[in-house]
């Protein structure tokens, strides 16, 4: 990555990089001014190493979340209770694979390679969203994921459409459009259950009870414990604090839960007239930290399945590469 960065800098700025500190200060000023003016940083622009590294980490982990996130939902494809629901769920999981592809492409504009990032995922050196370490135990979980998990993701991601790094911002515009659609479908699935038989209603309530708190944890640790927040906000990668986004999400969900005819599992949840927001109960940060450390209900299972798919697919990728080498001699020469 360092090599790619140096290469791009040299391409954009000639040999100026060799002048050392003074030139770097100039670049830094241009970068700061671009960010201050709310303009976009593009792949060939100079950027601080730490900005590049932060973005690679964040975009990669976002991509990993999309592909690990296929698992809890794909778990129900073969059991979907109607053909219409089955089609919707398949389309959704397919979209997630597509989002993973956009995001790996965005990370690659920063000099990372998809292969290397996947290796980091498989070896636990990069993370994915903690939410996907929870199991999907009933059909209603598919709806709860759509409504709550995708809802939280959208709340997080809409501000990223204005992120200072152009390729990430543009990927987010496409991702958010599709996510909003999934979120509405999840809501509609829960609504059908909630208005269905007593058993279906109970299934929906149980799923919401299990997914509510983990969804609130998706916004990350509280502001006073968030390691990267201040720098990311200064760089305009992030636009709002974790707690601010979490509050916004709760405010959106409460009336939606009411219209669903379902309750949220928080006895402290109530409207605060003075603040103009809902107050809500304390989050179990011990659970959050344990899940992040790998001790959630499905951490082991998710990574094992991902690695197995990758390892068992190695011979297929090797065959495709061998075929390409045999049948595209020009590509072979260019790569040599």
């Amino acid at each position: 990555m360092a090599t790619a960065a140096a290469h791009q800098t040299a391409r954009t700025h000639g040999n100026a990089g060799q002048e050392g500190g003074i030139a770097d200060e100039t670049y830094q000023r241009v970068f700061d001014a671009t960010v201050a003016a709310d303009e976009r940083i593009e792949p060939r622009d100079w950027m601080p190493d730490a900005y590049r590294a932060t973005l690679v980490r964040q975009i990669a982990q976002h991509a990993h979340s999309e592909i690990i996130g296929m698992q809890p939902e794909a778990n129900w494809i073969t059991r979907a209770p109607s053909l219409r629901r089955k089609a919707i769920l398949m389309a959704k999981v397919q979209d997630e694979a597509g989002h993973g592809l956009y995001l790996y492409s965005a990370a690659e504009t920063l000099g990372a390679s998809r292969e290397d990032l996947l290796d980091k995922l498989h070896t636990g050196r990069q993370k994915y969203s903690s939410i996907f370490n929870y199991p999907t135990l009933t059909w209603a979980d598919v709806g709860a994921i759509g409504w709550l998990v995708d809802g939280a993701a959208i709340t997080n991601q809409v501000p990223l459409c204005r992120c200072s790094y152009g390729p990430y911002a543009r990927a987010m515009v496409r991702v958010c459009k599709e996510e909003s659609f999934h979120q509405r479908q999840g809501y509609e699935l829960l609504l059908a259950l909630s208005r269905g038989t007593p058993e279906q209603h109970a299934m929906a309530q149980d799923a919401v009870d299990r997914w509510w708190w983990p969804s609130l944890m998706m916004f990350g640790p509280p502001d006073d414990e968030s390691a990267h927040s201040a720098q990311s906000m200064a760089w305009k990668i992030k636009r709002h604090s974790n707690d601010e986004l979490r509050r916004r999400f709760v405010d959106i969900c409460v009336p939606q839960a009411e219209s669903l005819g379902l309750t949220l599992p928080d006895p402290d949840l109530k409207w605060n007239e003075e603040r103009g927001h809902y107050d809500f109960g304390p989050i179990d940060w011990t659970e959050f930290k344990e899940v992040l450390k790998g001790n959630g209900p499905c951490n082991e299972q998710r990574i094992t399945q991902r690695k197995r798919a990758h390892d068992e697919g190695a011979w297929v990728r090797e065959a495709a590469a061998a075929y390409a080498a045999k049948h595209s001699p020009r590509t072979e020469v260019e790569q040599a």
Partner: protein
Amino acid sequence: MTRQAPAPTAAHTTTAALALGDDALVLSHRLGEWMGHAPVLEEEVALANIALDLLGQARILLSMAGDEDDLAYLREERAFRNVQLVEQPNGDFAHTIARQLYFSTYQHLLYDRLAAGRSPFAGLAAKAVKEVAYHRDHAEQWALRLGDGTDVAHERMRRACTALWRFTGEMFRPLDGLDLDPAGLEPDWLESVGGILGRAGLALPEGPRTGAWTAGAGREGLHTESFGRMLAEMQHLHRSHPGATW
């Protein structure tokens, strides 16, 4: 099934609609099992895409015969009319590709002919033939890569093509309600599949193309052992909540 139409022509249409609909439904289900397990992200997208196309076809075809969900979720194994080929377990990627190559080539020839006809299937076939052409291309491209890639992939592809060969004959048996005899598709199918396998450095397998059992096969509701388990998984939630809507 409960809405058996009185006129014989309609009954024949129902027979064919069920058979073709079950083919698409069952293969779609098998492809859905790949999701989250594919060898590369692009194949997660491609296999899901094909599964979705097939599910769309299944929904139209089953609706021609009755209620799509009643037919998919409330029939038992002996009432399904799909060919045994599509219910075969995914196996490795080569196995899945061989199944796709055999079936999509057949489906492409069939829909191409139906689209040109005047049967009740003409409309569906005209739309579906475009999807199926893409499925066939996908299977062809992978058959070439596996057959003519590495030695390991070649051997896996060869084994897969051989293992599934005995299920290919059933596709060309007569089917009530179609205004064509599927046997007429067979020479083109052999030429097409043989040509692709030839370019992949493989040959058409030898040996019989149907199992030696006079009781019949999938079109008569006689299936292979893994099919019952597949249906158990597919139907269990729907059957656990009789009369519920989803």
